[in-house]
């Protein structure tokens, strides 16, 4: 909890700094606020910000960089032949971390002294057992190299933390003395505070970019690792998805992509006509009363979390489809086409229902953007409303509607819960919508949940799939947003 205490100290110090800065400014002005350049609270804020902001920035950078630095340093200590076949360095490193954590706890609880740790011999003392008693479970006995690395890891972490505390404290001190020294009735405290505030605003705004970088970075590295372990040709051009935790898996994206696109297609087949006609009816025909009644209800459909739709697919729509298309002679059609509740149709239908309000509200906006004069022109020539809609409004709104459909498609491709619960787990290239199929998102979830070993291609493939999903949806979004934006500019 040292970080927590460090932050608390900084907050406390800034509060004190605020009071001191404010006081000093007032004293310098002889107690007359009007003699100050800025309001007294600005002087206080200036000191408080100088004490807290730079140290906090240093702190967060340090916290991010320290593990990276230590790990690369400690990892170099582990001899290459130490790493067994099929075991990744990161697995060894997690052992190192756990041992070091265990040593920490042991010292904290008084079971060992710090000096004892330094001379600890892994063979002589049953370290695994002793750590096990502390709740640190290790897979195997601790080897001397690992113990050495762990000791090194421990001391480096401790030194790092100490250095961090000192550096942060120094920054706070420098910040205080500088800002406190500057505090004077002529000092432009407001401008200084506003510059600081602006810097904070910029940091907040750039967090969006940081998130994107984080997304790309987090997936890119593991994707590269994956392609180091698995043939990229199999991933992109193979035809089979058959993960096998003994190794030798066939991991091709194509069957998953097929399942994803098939389900999304059925979803759009449901959502686009219904959503579009609903939007047309609401914007062109419905009176105010119907609009104010139906629109909020449609919005409710949009606000329902996807887990609810997933459950609806798994427990309601799926069994209902089985009753129609399955069960042999007991079924409604007397056929045996469907065995389980999960299928492409189940997931597609439910996803379609979910997308109806999405399509309709986007199309509604877009149809409303078509100027009324266009409709008047057509009606004035003696066209009926439906002729006006079909031949004037829809063609005029077409680019926008295409954009809306693309956005809906991107939603469908990235949707997770409905397919996890409603689509099934079998990857195949079938065209039969009553069979269960699997999707990219479903596989990401199943490869990354449960016991994950970040060294195996079976786990890492999830990152490659995530990357593919990200690129696919991002492409669709950029295209859709571009089309919609160009469309809107046409009528602005």
């Amino acid at each position, binding site marked *: 909890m040292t970080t927590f205490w460090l932050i608390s100290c900084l907050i406390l110090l800034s509060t004190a700094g605020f009071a001191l800065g404010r006081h000093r400014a007032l004293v310098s002005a002889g107690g007359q606020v009007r003699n100050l350049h800025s309001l007294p609270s600005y002087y206080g804020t200036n000191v408080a910000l100088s004490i807290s902001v730079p140290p906090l920035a240093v702190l967060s950078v340090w916290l991010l960089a320290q593990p990276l630095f230590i790990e690369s340093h400690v990892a170099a200590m582990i001899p290459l032949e130490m790493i067994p076949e099929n075991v990744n360095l990161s697995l060894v490193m997690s052992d190192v971390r756990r041992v070091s954590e265990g040593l920490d706890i042991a010292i904290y609880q008084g079971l060992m002294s710090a000096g004892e740790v330094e001379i600890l011999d892994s063979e002589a003392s049953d370290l695994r057992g002793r750590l096990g008693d502390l709740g640190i479970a290790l897979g195997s006995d601790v080897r001397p190299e690992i113990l050495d690395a762990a000791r090194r890891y421990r001391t480096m972490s401790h030194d790092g933390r100490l250095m961090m505390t000192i550096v942060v404290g120094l920054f706070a001190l420098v910040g205080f003395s500088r800002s406190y020294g500057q505090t004077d009735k002529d000092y432009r405290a407001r401008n200084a505070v506003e510059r600081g505030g602006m810097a904070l605003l910029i940091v907040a705004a750039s967090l969006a970019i940081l998130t994107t970088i984080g997304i790309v970075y987090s997936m890119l590295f593991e994707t590269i690792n994956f392609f180091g372990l698995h043939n990229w040709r199999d991933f992109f051009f193979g035809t089979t998805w058959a993960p096998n935790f003994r190794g030798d898996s066939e991991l091709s994206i194509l069957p998953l992509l097929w399942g994803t696109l098939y389900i999304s297609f059925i979803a759009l087949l449901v959502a686009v006509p219904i959503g579009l006609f609903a939007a047309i009816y609401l914007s062109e025909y419905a009176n105010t009363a119907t609009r104010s009644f139906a629109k909020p209800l449609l919005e409710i459909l949009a606000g329902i979390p996807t887990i609810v739709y997933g459950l609806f697919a798994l427990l309601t729509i799926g069994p209902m489809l089985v009753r129609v298309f399955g069960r042999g002679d007991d079924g409604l059609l007397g056929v045996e086409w469907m065995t389980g509740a999960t299928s492409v149709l189940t997931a597609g239908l439910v996803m379609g229902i979910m997308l109806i309000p999405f399509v309709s509200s986007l199309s509604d906006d877009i149809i409303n953007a078509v100027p009324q004069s266009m409709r008047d022109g057509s009606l004035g*020539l003696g066209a009926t409303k439906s002729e006006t809609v079909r031949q004037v409004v829809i063609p005029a709104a077409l680019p926008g509607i295409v954009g809306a459909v693309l956005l809906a498609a991107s939603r469908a491709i990235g949707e997770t819960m409905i397919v996890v619960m409603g689509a099934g787990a079998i990857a195949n290239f079938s065209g039969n919508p009553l069979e269960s199929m699997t999707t990219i998102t479903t596989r990401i979830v199943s490869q990354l949940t449960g016991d994950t070993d970040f060294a195996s291609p079976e786990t890492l493939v999830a990152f490659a799939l995530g990357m593919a999903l990200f690129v696919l949806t991002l492409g669709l979004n950029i295209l859709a947003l571009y089309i919609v934006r160009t469309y809107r500019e046409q009528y602005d």
Partner: protein
Amino acid sequence: MNDMTLLERKVETQDIKIEARNVQVHYGNTHAIKDVNVKIEDKTVTAFIGPSGCGKSTFLRCMNRMNDTIQACKVSGNILLDGEDIYDKRVDPVQLRAKVGMVFQKPNPFPKSIYDNVAYGPKIHGLYNTKSELDEIVETALRRAAIWDEVKDRLNAPGTGLSGGQQQRLCIARAVATAPEVLLMDEPCSALDPIATAQVEELIDELRQGFSVVIVTHSMQQAARVSQRTAFFHLGNLVEFGETGHVFTNPQDARTESYITGRIG
């Protein structure tokens, strides 16, 4: 253009095309048109003038039931087209609007080609049998709207790419192609520059040969230039209606006189 002075202009009396009897229009709680009676003659340009908000556009939109699209608008009284009440329950507004065409304040060509813009009316009303007939209708309409020479080489270019004045003449061609009997024009020149305005005004004068034209305008000069008959609206009332020359030179009502001389408006 008609260069004769107003009083010299000879106005022949034509058949009555549209007759309004005791027309009242309510917009929600507002009484927009109060008991208007008017007779619009065939093959004549009738101008509706008056200050903004006087109800002239509202009344114009009553004549082809464009007000039906506005929920809050209620029309009572009778408007007869060739003796038939257009507000009769049996009348289909779609059929009515084929006979009473409309040109709007802002040029509103559809986002289609010039050809498709003009062909739109004939297509929905089924006015042709073969493609060549349609071509002929389009050409005739564009010629009558005096824009044929400007667009004949680019009939497949989008109508929205034309200049404002050309767009408005395209809209007139579009209305003419449907072969209406009456052409309603709602301030057709208000969005145009003076040169385009002159072109459109000249066109209106020619259109009189084939149609009964009703034009709403802000500009008294325009009314004087293009119309044979003028109706002056004020606060929802039809104050004065008569030959354009008489209304402008010898107004009977004090309000008309004040408006013409620029004291109200």
